[in-house]
């Protein structure tokens, strides 16, 4: 299994307009078998409590050992400034980048219960917006600016009615554009 995953990732094309996303196993063990070795970047999804952060840190270490160009934490289910601060502090202590901050959003477990994609279940919800903003930044291969990879026509051509909230305002891009490894704090009080 691990060899198959590794080989598929290795073979995946890597043009500018192509993205390959590997949803890995929950246990970190697979990483030591090199499943992610041919990835360009690894996102370690963490929740704002110690055990989860510590697992993320261990995964990040394994990712770095594999020689991945970019290894970063993504703080998920963040409820307030206090939780965000805890994640930032942890990241700073362990010299880890935060690639994105996804707010806690009741629509996400809602989508799961409905066995639906969050994108279909609650298109405009704040977690989906935050994931989209992060995805665009990460896919463009930089921590900073948020270029739009395709003109709006292409998005329309997908023919799906659901409109997607536009990415975060440019301020966010400027904040990260200086090579700062820590993402600018988002206001979780909004919406």
């Amino acid at each position, binding site marked *: 299994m691990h*060899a198959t995953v590794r080989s598929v990732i290795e073979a995946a094309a890597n043009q500018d*307009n192509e993205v390959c996303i590997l*949803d890995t196993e*929950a246990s970190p063990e697979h990483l030591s078998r090199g499943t992610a070795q041919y990835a360009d970047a690894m996102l370690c999804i963490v929740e704002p409590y110690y055990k989860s952060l510590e697992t993320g840190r261990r*995964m990040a270490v394994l990712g770095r050992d594999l020689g991945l160009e970019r290894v970063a934490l993504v703080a998920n289910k963040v409820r307030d400034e206090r939780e965000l601060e805890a994640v930032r502090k942890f990241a700073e202590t362990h010299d880890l980048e935060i690639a994105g901050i996804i707010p806690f959003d009741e629509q996400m477990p809602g989508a799961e219960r409905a066995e639906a994609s969050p994108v279909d279940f609650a298109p405009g919800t704040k977690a989906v917006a935050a994931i989209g903003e992060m995805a665009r930044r990460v896919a463009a291969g930089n921590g900073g600016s948020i270029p739009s990879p395709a003109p709006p026509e292409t998005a329309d051509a997908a023919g799906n009615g659901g409109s997607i909230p536009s990415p975060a305002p440019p301020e966010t891009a400027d904040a990260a554009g200086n090579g700062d490894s820590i993402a600018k704090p988002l206001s979780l009080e909004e919406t």
Partner: protein
Amino acid sequence: MKLAVAGKGGSGKTSISGTMARLLARDGYKVLAIDGDSNPNLALTLGVPPERMNDLPVLTRDLLERSDDGPKLAKSLEEICETHSLRAPDGVTLLVMAHPQHAGTG
């Protein structure tokens, strides 16, 4: 860009993976999503209807062949996608890895 998404069970990594895949596909990226988890539910998060879950083709080990550098895919990834992938909404291509559990009694 090849991304590996890791995290503890329940951290939301599958929801994030699936959401990223769908939104990037809408942006015009050609997206290949790979479910490497032993409890495959990336398909649902991508918006594949539950009733299609039984149609999910899985990638088995016989797609690998030995080479001097270790195991390699026996066919091109394009060929494998033609026969073993499922097309999810927004044109996302989904590949699901076979797990030993599938062969068990479960």
